[in-house]
């Protein structure tokens, strides 16, 4: 991230009222430029009403820090992860090869995404098909910005002393060993981080992985997200923090199911940073 130590680029013209334009890679290319960082929004990030807010907040942080980023916009397409996990390797590889063609065509080197499933597939499964990029999940990316002193989060009173519990995404944690970055962010917010009984490598899935997000669950005694939300609520949190769009949906539904929306919010780590620092 050292190479990013430069002032806000002119492509990110912020107006005095704070509004700004989110640049696409195509727009930059038209100006003969390339982004330093591609923000891969993901389908949930682009279309899910709730997760669009996370996307906006993450972009605000990029804007605030002054990184030369861009998105693909209408040229972005599903990574193929849900198809692959549902057994449809054809649809996955068609998507993968199409995306790789676009990304390589734009000479993309560095990608950040707020979706652990997109992150995992870029990091682990695309390289063999010709898509080799430096890939970051927004949790490690944001933590690095804080570490480097480029993003200031201290001083915010919003979450000081409030109980926050972090729900591990399987594709971040067990899958790719990212356990501490999101927790360090929460600690930087001066929050009182309380762990659930099952955490880190022992964390319980929200129930949405492996394409479960897109189908009804099989017959059982209980929904997985209800079980997990129950564990989260045992910590009496003001906030259940997540770092994955699917976890966000599942935990939010769980909190609603338990009629706890009044006491407990489900929020992404990027939203917490933005809220506590009025970004």
């Amino acid at each position, binding site marked *: 991230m050292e190479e990013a130590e430069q002032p806000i680029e002119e492509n990110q013209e*912020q107006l005095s009222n*704070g*509004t*700004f*334009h*989110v640049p696409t890679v195509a727009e930059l290319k038209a100006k003969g430029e390339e982004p330093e960082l591609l923000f891969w929004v993901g*389908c949930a*990030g*682009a*279309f899910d009403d709730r997760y*669009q807010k996370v*996307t*906006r907040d993450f*972009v605000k942080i990029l804007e*605030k820090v002054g990184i030369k980023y861009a998105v693909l*916009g*209408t040229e*972005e397409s*599903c990574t*193929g992860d*849900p*198809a692959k996990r*549902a*057994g*449809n*390797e*054809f649809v996955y*590889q*068609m*998507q993968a090869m199409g995306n790789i063609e676009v990304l390589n065509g734009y000479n993309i080197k560095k990608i950040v995404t707020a979706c652990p499933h997109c992150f995992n597939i870029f*990091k682990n*499964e695309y390289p*063999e*098909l010709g898509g080799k990029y430096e890939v970051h999940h927004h949790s490690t990316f944001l933590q690095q910005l804080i570490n480097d002193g480029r993003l200031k989060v201290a001083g915010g009173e919003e979450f000081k002393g409030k109980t926050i519990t972090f729900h591990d995404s*399987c594709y971040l944690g*067990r*899958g790719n*060993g990212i356990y501490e970055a999101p927790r360090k962010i929460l600690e930087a917010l001066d929050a009182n981080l309380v762990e659930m009984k099952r955490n880190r*490598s*022992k964390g*319980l*899935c929200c*129930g949405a*992985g*492996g*394409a479960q*997000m*897109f*189908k*009804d*669950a*099989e*017959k*059982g*005694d*209980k929904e*997985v997200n*209800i*079980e997990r939300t129950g564990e989260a609520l045992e910590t009496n949190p003001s906030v259940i923090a997540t770092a994955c769009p699917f976890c966000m949906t599942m935990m939010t539904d769980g909190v609603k199911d338990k009629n706890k929306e009044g006491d407990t919010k489900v929020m992404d780590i990027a939203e917490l940073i933005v809220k506590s620092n*009025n970004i």
Partner: protein
Amino acid sequence: MSKQLIFGLFLFLSLGVFTYTAFRLASFFRLTKKGFKVDRISERITTTLLVAFGQTKILRRPAIGLMHALVYWGFMVITIGSVEMMVDGLAGTERIMGSLGIFYSLITASGDIFAAIIILSCFAFLVRRHIMKVKRFSGVEMSPKSSMDATAALTMILILMFSLIGMNMGYLVNHSDEIVGYYPISSLFTGLVSAESAHLFQETNWWIHIVLIFVFLNILPYSKHFHIIMSIPNVFLTDLKPMTQMNNMASVTKEVKLMMDPNTAFAAPAEDAPPPERFGVKDIEDITWKNYTDSLTCTECGRCTSVCPANITGKLLSPRKIMIDTRKRMNDRGPGLSKDPNFDDGKSLVGDYITTEELWACTTCNACVQECPVNIDPVSIIMDMRRNLVMEESNAPKELVQMFTNIENNGSPWQFSPEDRLKWTEGISLNS
């Protein structure tokens, strides 16, 4: 002399039977498919030292894990003594390693102490199984045979350890003037053995111990306790990828590339092209060699199932059952398939052993892979069975079929227009 002969004959027979069984099980590897490449040897050695010898994963449950680790480390030390017993039995010697002096004392003393620890642990294991009835020892896939297997193995280990201590007790009394080695536990009980019976006591226990070792060895391949032999190699052969990484199917890559290349898209397939292989796993001939070693290694401890989100919430899926069924299917079909590549018993792994309902319940969270003390990967075979259901049988839940269509048509698993991908940017501003 006659003792040597009888022992030699016994050793020859039992090793012979074991070799036969081992070859029979190994021959089934020919039926399996290629998997990942076994490289990164130094990383494998580290993994083996940590997970197998260091027992790091079983120690994720510290109390019961420590008991298992002590039994395991005890077995390692006691095995040195068993090798000595075999040499003694064949050569007609007694404690032939005695000349090692202080090292010999160290080996015998640790063996003696470990025997006592193993006895205590085995009693604890029996109590957990039969009195406390720990939940993960039950489940639909747990047959009465499995439970009997466990009880029989624990009983055999108990007899092995009692006879080891008995042998040492007899030896101490029999050779009270010229004792080689050090036996801190056995020496506490020498008062129980009279001088006249000491020789017979020692010999009887020697025979019980050595015969039982070989009986146990020959039972192992037919029981879930085969992990005693399989776990070290299985850990060495771990797929070292990140847990959530799924392989890219090379056969699909080839076809997709052909489809995307305008020059070949409409070309007729080459005459001499080999018939396309089956996608995914339907039956036992479709699994990889690693799926097979995984199935042989599973000791049915159930740690996987006890952390499976689907199982915890009452769904049919149990990762342990997937491994048990895989091994069972190879046992049922392997012999016929070895003789005749077209052998068909009218059944298949998916459908007759494992139901689609189980397969569709997996969230690919990899908690089972994380917890398995011997690095078995139930998720990879579950995913390969899904691949078969979808790509060969077109048998997927209808919501997933809709999801595939959405991705193909809109580039998103949901029914949204790709034109709307930037809607979230509308009116975006800082400090709002």
